[in-house]
């Protein structure tokens, strides 16, 4: 059964992810960052991950930028990457659907690493997401499959390693990678 994950653990995983990404950029010869924080979260606020957003509000090591649309969030993340700044796009499934052309044009055709944390709002605890009663939940993984986007489910604290792993995967593949947040964060 999936478990709800405490926000503090996700924030810690994000910090580890950003540290690793910065080290990778430095190894490629990127100049030192001009910023004091570890990385950027581009968010279109997601009810499912609201406890994480609340925790990020108090977090000085990560800069959160709230965007008007998911298209912007993805494209800003791409611009940050070009300047060797690590980022995470934090949205919900409806926002993924709303920004499919940007996923295609920026992350896939543009071959730019964009890592997404996508909240599966309304996902049922006792049901596989692909069998959900809710179309927003049910279509998410099939949509990602259509575009060949690697994805994984964050189903409990034991899965937190997926965040740095899939961020790394997006950099190695030069494209998008998605971690789906299975249950509402605690």
């Amino acid at each position, binding site marked *: 059964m999936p478990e709800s994950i405490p926000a503090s653990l996700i924030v810690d995983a994000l910090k580890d992810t950003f540290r690793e990404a910065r080290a990778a950029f430095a190894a490629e010869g990127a100049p030192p960052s001009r910023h004091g924080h570890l990385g950027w979260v581009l968010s279109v606020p997601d009810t499912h991950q609201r406890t994480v957003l609340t925790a990020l509000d108090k977090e000085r090591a990560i800069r959160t930028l709230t965007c008007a649309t998911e298209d912007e969030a993805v494209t800003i993340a791409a611009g*940050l990457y070009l300047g060797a700044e690590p980022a995470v796009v934090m949205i919900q499934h409806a926002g993924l659907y709303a920004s499919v052309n940007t996923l295609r044009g920026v992350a896939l055709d543009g071959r730019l690493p964009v890592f997404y944390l996508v909240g599966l709002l309304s996902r049922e605890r006792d049901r596989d997401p692909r069998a959900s009663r809710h179309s927003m939940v049910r279509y998410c993984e099939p949509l990602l499959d259509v575009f060949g986007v690697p994805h994984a489910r964050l189903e409990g604290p034991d899965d937190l390693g997926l965040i740095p792993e899939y961020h790394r995967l997006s950099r190695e593949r030069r494209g998008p990678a998605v971690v789906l947040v299975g249950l509402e964060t605690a």
Partner: protein
Amino acid sequence: MAIKPEEALRLIAGARGDAICVPTMTTSPAWRTLAPDDLSVTCIGFMGGASALGLGLALARPDRRVIVLDGDGSLLMQLGSLATIAGARPRNLVHVVFKNGVYHTSGSQEIPGGLAVDFVMMARAAGYRDGWSLGDLDDLRRRLPSILAAEGPVLVELRTTLAAETPVTARGGAPFHEQAEALRTRLRGA
């Protein structure tokens, strides 16, 4: 009065210094001739994204000026980016909107609101530090140095004629992924 876009772009190319530039749509054919370098990345294939791409670059590299060469129809597709940019307050971002009132590339259909849309007013209302609407080339020439040195984000609405070429009539240029990688490489070494 209206400015020929190629003439405005020529002025910007001459004054930009080492600024990163993000052209899109009808500014892109002329820009790749006027500024054939790898400090530019053209927004191709995700219309409306130039302002957000410029914002990401500006936030990543506060040591460099970033100039977005946007279109009026393009900006309308992601108009919320005005508020996002204003909220992020990048001091190094100059947002130039080439306003011709139509979707030139697809056959010159009028944009919603046509030439009545006031991008300067919208940018100021969103929280940009300043904005100007210019329709005279000499005026642009005179004011460009101070605009490019201004603390951002600022927006310049250029009232222009139609460009001589569009991305459809003048195909070519490197694909987006090659331009992006060239810019990333260049920024890595600078």
